[in-house]
């Protein structure tokens, strides 16, 4: 299995989109090269803007562009794209429901050795609470490409979160994705593992281990946190009863919380959340940071078995 970061999927797809549609713009904030917009900058300079290290005006400029029929992708790191400019996103993109996309690399703990300032564990929760916003984290390179394309084609504000670090490819290039529709990667009725982003690979590995032990679990790639695929979650609760969620995000206000809300509304099912334990990270290897929070194949297996 080859390894590639999902920020590369964004970088490759945005160039393709920009060549097809002259209204696709990139608004960089001086970390374009790191966020993989270098090729776009070179190929499509008339559709590229760099506002400097100034995320707040990046969001505002993007909103202004959007009022003129342009589809701007504001590109930065997740920590800055979700927090430095969150009020501009709320006021100038979400409130007027403008066609602004926020595309962020360095999601979760993937900026590992950069330390806690650059790791971002709060973003999807923060953005999910704003009306009109769509929140997406693809699980691999090919799904990143497909979901970037889908985001460009969906009217309204969308937040996309990518990995800095390389992760395994899960999907082939022809796989189809729809915003708000989970991808079922395996079926089973003993339990379900609902994951997104860079943890989907761990969910698949855990399901393989469990299957070898005779436990059949369903695995869902919940790439869209908002709007959540309530139908798929409901079906998992109805069919499996036991749900384990996995995410490279704070367990507060992330995927696990969203899934638990569905179970609470139904008054059915049992949900266990695996994710960042409401604590800041540190400079350390990516896999170590995940392990410090129990985000491992082994812990997913143990957690599922404890529920059976």
């Amino acid at each position, binding site marked *: 299995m080859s390894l590639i970061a999902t920020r590369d999927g964004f970088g490759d797809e945005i160039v393709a989109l920009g060549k097809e549609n002259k209204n696709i713009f990139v608004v960089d904030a001086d970390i374009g090269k790191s966020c993989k917009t270098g090729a776009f900058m070179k190929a499509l300079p008339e559709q590229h803007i760099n*506002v*400097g290290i100034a995320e707040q005006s990046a*969001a*505002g*400029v993007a*909103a202004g562009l959007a009022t*003129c*029929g342009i589809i701007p992708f504001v590109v930065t790191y997740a920590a800055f794209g979700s927090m430095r400019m969150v*009020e501009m996103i709320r006021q100038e993109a979400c409130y*007027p429901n403008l066609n602004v996309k926020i595309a962020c690399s360095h999601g979760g703990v993937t900026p590992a050795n950069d330390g806690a300032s650059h790791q971002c564990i709060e973003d999807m929760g923060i953005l999910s609470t704003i009306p009109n916003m769509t929140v997406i984290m693809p699980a691999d390179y090919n799904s990143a490409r497909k979901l970037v394309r889908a985001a460009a084609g969906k009217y309204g504000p969308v937040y996309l979160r990518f990995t800095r670090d390389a992760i395994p490819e899960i999907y082939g290039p022809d796989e189809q994705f729809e915003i708000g529709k989970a991808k079922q990667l395996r079926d089973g009725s003993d339990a379900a593992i609902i994951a997104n982003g860079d943890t989907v690979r761990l969910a698949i590995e855990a399901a393989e281990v469990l299957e070898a032990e005779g436990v059949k679990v369903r695995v869902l790639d919940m790439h869209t946190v908002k709007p959540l695929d309530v139908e798929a979650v409901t079906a998992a609760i109805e069919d499996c009863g036991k749900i384990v969620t996995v995410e490279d995000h704070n367990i507060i206000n992330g995927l696990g919380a969203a899934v638990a809300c569905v179970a609470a509304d139904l008054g059915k099912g049992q949900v266990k959340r695996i994710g960042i334990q409401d604590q800041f990270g540190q400079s350390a290897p990516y896999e170590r940071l995940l392990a410090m929070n129990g985000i491992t194949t082994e812990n997913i297996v143990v957690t599922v078995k404890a529920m059976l």
Partner: protein
Amino acid sequence: MQDISVSELKVIANDLRKKVVTMIYKAKSGHPGGSLSAAEFVTAAYFREMNIDPADPKWPDRDRFVLSKGHVCPIQYAALATKGYFEESVLDTLRKEGSILQGHPDMKKCPGIDISTGSLGQGFACGAGMALAGKRQGRDYRVFVVLGDGELDEGEIWEAANVCNKYALDNVVVFVDWNNLQLDGTCDQVMPLLDIGAKFESFGFEVWNIDGNDMQQVVDALDEIRERKNGKPKCIVGKTVKGKGVSYMENQVGWHGTAPNEEQYKQAMLELNGGAV
């Protein structure tokens, strides 16, 4: 640009002031002080300078108007109603449930609003984005941005100024309504602004320092700006009087966000109708 005299513009500005005071009196809330200080620029922009069509508020080639200090929307609503974007009777619904006239401008509800504002410091960057879109799309429109003096405290204002300079947005016309009062006190008390014109000059703007309540000076500045397609963004720093036109509101920080009572309303209308001060 429309052919209209300075004396006619003065009459319109006075009429807009009356609408502002009436609207806020009926709503029992709103921001009269900064609405009144900006009246000359708003009038000159809407009734003389801007290329707009009230029958087609989304016309792609229209000039844009960004009220970055969105809380003074009563003066913009008064201008829009007078221009015919909506019925003047709608002004009576300001800040009421279901109204198109929200407490701060809402582009999805009110025709003629080019961007929703209300959180200070944010509108300017949106205006820069509109101007940049015009340049990239080869459209000839301009973007008129009204900034409050107090919102110059916000860092995003200067980020947006950088964008105007870098991308040579000579289609941006900023008006700074320098009435020198913000919510908690004078600008000097809250956060000294020093020389606003010099600041904008150092950010690459061409600057006009004028009396922002003198219609002739506003018109003269706009006349000069119109012909200057030289790659430099424009800034008019208008020294103004907060509450201008209503004697008891003038230069009173307490009239930032207060509605007049019945007696005060009558007095304001008497003065604006040319009666005794």
